[in-house]
């Protein structure tokens, strides 16, 4: 799946960029283009754009309509990241970097993901 627009134009990517800037200073997404390239490649692999990936992680409670982060949905995304890592052909440090870039995207958008899940 090709994204409809350049990946940096998605709101969730802007949130990610802002989170990284506030956390580390500078402009980490611009300084390390590999991060955006990894997210774009994952979106192509998964078939969803960044906003759709995030929306998938949330459900609403039937009784109250309150939105919550679903553990099962998060696990499903983790499964996709594992599959993406496998198909990437990378191993060792390179594979860990790939995963950590994707987790960073989710974390700065409020979805807690960690390497122990992958």
């Amino acid at each position, binding site marked *: 799946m090709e994204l409809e627009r350049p990946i940096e134009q998605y709101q969730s990517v802007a949130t990610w960029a802002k989170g990284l800037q506030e956390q*580390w200073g500078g402009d*980490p997404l611009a300084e390390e283009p590999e991060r955006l390239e990894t997210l774009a490649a994952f979106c192509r692999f998964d078939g969803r754009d960044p906003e759709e990936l995030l929306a998938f992680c949330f459900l609403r409670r039937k009784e109250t309509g309150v939105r919550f982060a679903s553990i099962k949905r998060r696990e499903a995304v983790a499964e996709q990241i594992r599959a993406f890592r496998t198909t990437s052909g990378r191993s060792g440090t390179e594979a860990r970097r790939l995963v*950590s870039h*994707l*987790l960073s995207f989710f974390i700065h958008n409020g979805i*807690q993901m*960690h*390497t*122990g899940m992958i």
Partner: protein
Amino acid sequence: MRIASCAVNAHWLRAVVVQRSEIPQEILDSLKTPVTALVQELAPVHIYCYLDLGSVKKAQGTRLKELVDVGALNPSHGWSHKFVDELVYPQILEPFSEAPAYPVAAAFDCGGAGTQGLLVAVDEGLGVCWTAFNPEPAKEMMDIPDDWLPLYVMNVGYPLESREAGGQRPRPPFEELYFDGKVGRPFPRDPKVVAELKREKMIMPPAPLPSRRQEVRDLSRKLGLPE
């Protein structure tokens, strides 16, 4: 933790030490909670802490009498074997061990003992962190008795971060927490005491230390953790 000061010498705290490498991955995953999972995943040793609710009734005052025997509790303060046998255990401790407030009081005691263990571990150069854990799989994995109340797990490892760990974490102002005689009248901090504690490094420079962000970033990259 074992030799920590303890109310009525009851010693409610129990702990089971488990090597993470010996926990099957499926069980390890089930022990984790959403916000503590990485800590449990990284720490090579887990110390699962419990409160033995049966501790008072099992001892029936015998541990108090041990304190009388060694001179820790003395007639000067009204203590004797007879006092324990006829008043303290049957009229105070046994009924208290059935009262709703009992687990709270015992948990306070466990917290004090456990935290002393935490400090000793840091003094020995280890890295430690309390986290919650899922009690059901833990109970099954470690054959935990029914009357043990799950508390926390102490995650133990070797710290990669600097000893300052980024500096003193933010805490509420002293005067908002502690009072002088009446609630609402702040207990004043003594600047001389504060200065002495800082000299002794009991109070660390406030976080974040200048190098903290870079330290965390370097460690994240070293371990392949997200930024």
